[in-house]
């Protein structure tokens, strides 16, 4: 069922991708043949930034929000597709604990681009700058790089991290060298290629977006079709192998998907940063859910959102390069997820911990009250009982202030009533609760003495650790275990050891 839901999700994502590619292309077809409806439609990079600088800020915002600008539409579609594909593929990479392999694939793509350019120029001069050729080079080189990582791991005793670093740096060095060679070639300047390193989202064209959407579609369809196998690979490699799947084959397929994403992002955010789209959205999505299909979808959404956000901000402030801004947008989403997600988020966990400490303090207070009452010989079965503050203070190593604060909180919850300045009155509810806490504590102590051979003098410390997290089911089990031992089990059993606080009582 979950797989079907995930597939539905993918279908949705693909639909978004299709819609994203169709409308700028359609718009392009509308605009290009006839006279353009506005002078803005056939903009190049240069006049995009010129134009963007000229109108005031609000006009730019309106232009962006209404998608009036042809160029903006293309850029947004390209970056959103990158985010979606990166999120989906990144989810698997993250769960496979191979997040940094994407970095190798993208760095290794550089020599591929240069070699593809050189080869194409040698075969058919002037054809070297064809986008498909360059991206094919990037794809192949990225896969060769991953192959080298696998070979190093297979034939040497170096660990994975070293293999990654070696391949990444050597391939990148080769790429840089080849680029300098290309730069010196008679066929000219390398300006078009340079954009691959840093990205040039603002200069995306309809053709680029077409290539991008084909790659994104391929990656998404592959991921959707092999969803089951890939999740098997991520969660239980051994089981996948036992089922007859080639783990190396599946890994290579996943690397192929990563290479696709690299190719998608290489133009808009550049190959140095494209790996961020594989890591950050997926890591952000991990905070929100423990369910793989949901996580995949969410990663796609977060990735798409950061692509849109980044490209949008960059369109509003053209001096901010799109690539880094997209990554920073993803980082902001990651930060929000890390702090505010309901279960795994930092705040939620801090709150959870504080609730636990509060409960521990409250239970300590109540148990102390009970012990004081018990040792004072007062009738604990009465409706209400009075405890002196001085005795409480002597028993717990809390400051007076701390004690007052805890008492005030308990008072608010109706466990205590304040009768005079130096005494508190435990209400019937408070007594009930205190009885329960003391009983849990002593049940555990008895259990430790009976079944764990712990000396009675030491059980207090151990029981202190566990009494706050004893569930009713565990208490029932304890009762069962200790049934033959103590006839008064339904009541609070007597403490098996001397209670330290008796010194404080008169």
């Amino acid at each position, binding site marked *: 069922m979950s797989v079907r839901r995930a597939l539905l999700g993918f279908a949705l994502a693909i639909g978004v991708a299709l819609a994203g590619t169709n409308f700028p292309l359609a718009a392009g077809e509308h605009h290009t043949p006839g006279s353009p409806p506005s002078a803005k439609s056939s903009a190049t990079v240069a006049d995009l930034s010129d134009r963007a600088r000229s109108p005031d800020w609000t006009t730019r915002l309106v232009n962006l929000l209404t998608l009036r600008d042809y160029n903006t539409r293309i850029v947004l579609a390209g970056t959103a597709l990158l985010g979606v594909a990166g999120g989906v593929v990144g989810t698997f990479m*993250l769960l496979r*604990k*191979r*997040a*940094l392999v994407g*970095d190798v694939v993208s*760095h290794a793509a550089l020599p591929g681009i240069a070699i593809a350019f*050189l080869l194409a*120029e*040698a075969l058919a001069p002037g054809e070297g700058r064809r986008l498909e050729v360059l991206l094919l080079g990037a794809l192949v080189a990225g896969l060769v790089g991953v192959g080298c990582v696998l070979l*190093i791991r297979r*034939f*040497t*005793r*170096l*660990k994975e*991290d*070293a293999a*990654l*670093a*070696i391949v*990444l*740096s*050597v391939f*990148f*060095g*080769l*790429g*840089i*060298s*080849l*680029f*300098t*060679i290309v730069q*010196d*070639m*008679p066929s000219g300047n390398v300006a078009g290629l340079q954009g691959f*390193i*840093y990205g040039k989202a603002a200069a995306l064209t309809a053709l680029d977006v077409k290539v991008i959407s084909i790659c994104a579609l391929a990656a998404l369809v592959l991921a959707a079709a092999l969803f089951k196998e890939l999740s098997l690979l991520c969660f239980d490699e051994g089981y996948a192998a036992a089922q007859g799947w080639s783990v190396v084959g599946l890994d290579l397929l996943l690397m192929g998907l990563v290479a696709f994403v690299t190719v998608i992002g290489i133009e808009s955010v550049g190959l*140095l*940063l494209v*790996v*961020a789209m594989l*890591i*950050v959205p997926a*890591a952000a999505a*991990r*905070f929100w859910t423990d369910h793989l299909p949901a996580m995949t979808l969410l990663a796609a959404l977060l990735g798409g959102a950061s692509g849109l956000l980044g490209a949008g901000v960059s369109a509003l402030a053209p*001096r*901010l*390069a799109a*690539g*880094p*801004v997209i*990554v*920073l947008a993803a*980082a902001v989403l990651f930060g929000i997820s*890390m702090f505010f997600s309901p279960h*795994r988020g*930092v705040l939620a966990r801090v709150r959870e911990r504080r609730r636990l400490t509060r409960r521990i303090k409250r239970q300590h207070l109540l148990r102390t009250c009970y012990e004081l009452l018990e040792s004072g010989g007062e009738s604990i079965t009465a409706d209400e009982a009075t405890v002196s503050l001085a005795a409480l203070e002597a028993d717990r190593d809390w400051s007076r202030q701390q004690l007052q604060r805890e008492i005030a909180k308990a008072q608010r919850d109706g466990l205590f009533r304040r009768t005079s300045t130096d005494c508190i009155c435990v209400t019937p509810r408070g007594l009930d609760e205190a009885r329960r806490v003391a009983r849990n504590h002593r049940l555990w102590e008895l259990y430790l003495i009976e079944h764990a051979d712990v000396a009675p003098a030491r059980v207090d410390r151990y029981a202190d650790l566990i009494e706050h997290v004893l569930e009713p089911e565990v208490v029932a089990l304890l009762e069962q275990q200790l049934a033959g031992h103590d006839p008064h089990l339904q009541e609070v059993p007597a403490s098996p050891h001397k209670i330290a606080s008796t010194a404080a009582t008169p």
Partner: protein
Amino acid sequence: MPNWFPSLADWSWLDTRIVITAGLAAMACALPGNFLLLRRQSMMGDALSHAVLLGIAVAFLTAHGLQAAGILSHDSYDATRHAVMFVGAVVVGVLTAVLSETVRKLGNVEASAALGVVFLVLFALGLLLIRLYADRVHLDPDCVLYGTVETAAVDGRLIRVNGAMLAVNLLLVGLLFKELRLAAFDPGLATTLGVNAGVMHYGLMAVTAATLVAAFETVGSILVIAMLIVPPATAYLLTQRLWLMVALSLVVAAASALLGHVAAIVLPPLVAGLLGWDSNVGASSAGMMAVAAGALFVVAVIVSPQQGLVMRVLRRAGLRVRIAEEDLLAWLYRAAETLRAQPATQSAADAPDTAPPNDPLRPGWLWQQLALRRLVRRGQVQRTESGPQLTPSGHQAAQDLVRTHRLWESYLQRHFGDLPGERQHRSAHQMEHYISPEMREELAAELDRPRHDPHGQEIPPPAEQDSESL
């Protein structure tokens, strides 16, 4: 003489300076790289080399801001900039380590993903800053990323900076060698012996970041990782002693600087010539140095004395020849045995103990020929007209082998009696090559020195005992 040789004839003092500068930078990087590699934090080097960009950018902007505000004179600008740059890089380096650890712990994120998130965000910030202010502070991202060894080598400052960094790193490694080794190989023991793991970790990060900044102007902030990890990895394949590994990594680093620069001069005209272009082209020396380091690594993978591919192939071939030899000896022994037993009721074809001609376990023809030649040379087999014959010494060796084989079969029969005979034979056929004489006699003792194997064949006595009794 090849036509690219003249390109090396133009070697000048500038080329020498480039090699020295880059070599010093590479050696300075390789030192902390050794310990990153051993601590399995190679990708930390990658992360630092990216993240340091932010420190550099902030340092440039600070120095520029100070100058613009009139606090800094033009003369002291460069010195201040470099000082600020070092501080910025060390801060960012430690920050990367601290932040990724924080994200990992706070968010329960997997370690490599946490590192990725942190260093990519820092790198993106750095890139953004540089591209925002690049035209104002004369900071070209290309120079930061790829280095400008060709132009920067003209003045001696880079040599001094890299030399100083190398000296500092050598001093640190020399002083803290014991602690570093302990923390790299056994962090638990290091902690119990009072070596503070946190100080070691963040100290290493700080030193690495400082080294990266010193080297980035030479080889660029990304190629620096090639100098950081590849030479130590090469050395790691060549030796198992730490001090030797550190020394070798320095040699490899220096060698890759030299080879890289030579390749940068020599190779591009070749490529251009192949593609039919004007041969007046050059490649980035820094890039080629990374490639040269990679090439040296590949060489080490192939020829490393212990785990190199060549050694592995040789070892495997040696094993195969030995197995082929032993199979041949045993086969000759059995053939002679069958010949002796011919008058008996059992015919040769029935003997399950003899390796049949089409045995799938039989080594190939080539190996057999090789084995035969080696046996003849060793005097264990002699060629006669009716085929190869065992010599007395060959007979002894063969007798031991067959004894091992049949003892193993008996052993299997006793403990795994329901195994079919064919399986017992196969297992014994493999085990006979691996069971030592001591183990063979242990087997015999455990089985109460049997006379016959499960197939009814006689188990020959040990050869040496045999010769003694003669």
